[in-house]
């Protein structure tokens, strides 16, 4: 035994149990309330799209990594989460191959071609979603939906279109319905409560902090009020809550320092209000967060935290 060799490494020699994969798995768990609500309202439509997203993501990631000579990385759960995200960002009425195209763009282009998880500049799922928005306007992709039975409420528009139409009274859904469940628009928009449940889990697990979501939601609320619009409606409707808690907080594409995160959140909040009110409500949150992503490297450089002892020093008391 005396001459046997033991493991060598730099310290520390003990580590926390958490791995990238287990944290990503927690994100998938945090999506369960949103998924449950979607399945309750949209049945097979939701299930087919969610499965299509996840399957496309797993296959696409495996193929891309094989082609690029990288080890498979299904264990990090990142592909699964991206697939779920793309399906959730879209309305359940879109054909499943829409979801697959968006997922392939997300995984192949935005993630793997950029160097893999950790080196991507843009949030893959959001980029995939926005690409679909643009592609569907450029090309007639057709409407080859599967007949999966009647689809309740899906035909109703996203509540945000009511803002644009200037019809905020009467026909728009009430606050409580927006908060609990309103089957219109994307899966992500259906229930604010479901989004907040998942967000609470992520905050409890320590994967997300309050800084980015609070900055985004606070900015949207205050700016909307200043501009004379309805701040409560603006924060509850559309994909704002989902975007603030699940998309803008993406580890890889958000700034690292807390101060930079708050500036990033404010920037995204301002963009959301401007785009929603003066351009198009559809995709406003997604466009804003992607622009925020592009600013992340700069924000990281501009806002470096003050080091220990550089903040304040108490003078020596001499007696």
């Amino acid at each position: 035994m005396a001459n046997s060799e033991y493991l060598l490494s730099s310290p520390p020699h003990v580590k926390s149990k958490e791995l990238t994969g287990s944290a990503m798995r927690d994100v998938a768990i945090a999506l369960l309330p949103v998924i449950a609500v979607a399945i309750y309202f949209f049945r097979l439509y939701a299930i087919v799209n969610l499965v299509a997203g996840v399957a496309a993501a797993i296959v696409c990631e495996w193929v891309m990594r094989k082609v690029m000579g990288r080890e498979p990385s299904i264990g990090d759960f990142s592909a699964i989460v991206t697939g779920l995200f793309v399906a959730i960002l879209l309305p359940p009425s879109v054909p499943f191959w829409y979801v697959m195209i968006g997922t392939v763009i997300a995984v192949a282009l935005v993630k793997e071609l950029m160097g893999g998880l950790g080196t991507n500049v843009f949030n893959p799922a959001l980029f995939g979603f926005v690409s679909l928005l643009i592609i569907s306007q450029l090309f007639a992709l057709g409407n080859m939906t599967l007949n999966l039975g009647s689809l309740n409420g899906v035909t109703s528009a996203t509540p945000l279109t009511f803002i644009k139409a200037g019809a905020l009274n009467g026909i728009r859904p009430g606050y409580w319905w927006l908060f609990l469940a309103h089957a219109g628009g994307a899966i992500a928009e259906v229930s604010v409560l479901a989004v907040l449940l998942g967000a609470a889990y992520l905050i409890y697990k320590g994967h997300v902090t309050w800084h980015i979501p609070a900055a985004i939601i606070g900015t949207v609320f205050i700016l909307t009020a200043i501009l004379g619009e309805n701040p409560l409606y603006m924060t509850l409707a559309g994909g704002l809550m989902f975007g603030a808690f699940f998309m803008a907080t993406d580890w890889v594409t958000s700034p690292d320092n807390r101060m930079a995160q708050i500036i990033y959140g404010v920037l995204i909040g301002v963009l959301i209000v401007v785009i929603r009110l003066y351009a198009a409500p559809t995709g406003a949150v997604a466009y804003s967060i992607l622009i925020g992503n592009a600013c992340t490297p700069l924000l990281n450089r501009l806002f470096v935290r003050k080091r220990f002892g550089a903040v304040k020093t108490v003078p020596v008391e001499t007696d």
Partner: protein
Amino acid sequence: MELKTFRGGIHPPYRKEATAKKATVEISLPAEVVIPMQQNVGAPNTPTVNVGDRVEAGQQIGSSEAFISAPVHSSVSGTVKAIEERRNFTGAMVQCVVITVDPNQPAKWTEKKDVGDLSPEQIRDIAKEAGLVGLGGAAFPTFVKLSPPKDKPIDIVVINACECEPFLTCDHRLMLERADDLLAGLKLMMKAVGAGKGVIGIEANKMDAADMLSSKLAGDSAVEVVVLEVKYPEGAEKMLIDAITGRRVPPGKLPSEVGVLVQNVQTAVALYEAAATGKPVIERVITVTGPAMKDPKNVLVRIGTPIEHVVEQSGGMTGDVVKVIIGGPMTGWAQKDLSAAVVKGTSGILALTKEVVDANAEQQCVGCDKCIDACPMFLVPNFIVRYARRGQWDLADKYGARDCFECGCCSYVCPARIPHVGYVRKAKAEIAAAQKK
């Protein structure tokens, strides 16, 4: 009640139960001791003995002219067998005096004399002559810390009794077994630097020791026991000063900058011992533990004892040992084999099993920011690593590489298993080299 603490840090499993309640035992002497000439921060010593010389326990065998240095003494009576390079616990080759141990060891330092009338000057001399260094692991020469610059008066002496590293309990045991010596040592330190106040900073997982010291201090207004939150690295000098006094040592400065002197429990006990009996640093208490150690305990060992002997005399290791650490699990040194010797700064020997040692491979950083929240120095560890990987040392410096004291919190929390400390060490060396040019 909210306990005092610092910002950042981590809560690893502490695993101190195996040894915390067992009395310290003295182990038998080895056949030979290997005493490195450098056991301290600062200059190495030059041997003052020759091969074949007869040496007595406590005899000085190495000294240096440099200011930041500490002499070394023979820990046993015996004969100098060799003076040669041996591998120390860090893996570096250092000059060592190898001494064959005499079977008959005369009893020494049994009489205690009163230390009450020693002058500050005398206390400093005693610390220097005894070869006293920070016994918590840092091994910075104590007399240097006891000689603060005249323009930086010290008003508080803090005894670091946190022992925030998991597994280790040697300071805890020492407080329980030698509380009076600890308090006497603290008084000597306060006198040496002219501080009116003494504080013993202790984590809340050692309440038995805290209560005992408090009861001994009843009626003494100069010394206070402050119970701190159990958090790593509560015992890091700058964190401890912040937690107790609210003073923050500026980047690149020493604690004297804010009027504080910090010394470890074992250092204070050893200072008192040296003052009262004349005994230099020739032995210390170390924690021999870990899931692969058969009979975990604290042992009193002579400096220079090969760790193989310490492990054997402590009951040996189980077959499933995969990693052996000298020091604590957060900052200690992994050992290739058991050949290194105990030095003044050795606080523990840990034998770890596969279950405790993490085998996950390093992955790409995903920007989770957990290292940033954990860093007690408010640095940006993931950015230091990013720029160190690219060889951009100026940027690694910008994000704080030189302020890092390598506590390992960032690597502990990292889900991508990035070995930040290794990158920081490289960055520090490169930044220092660039400045020399």
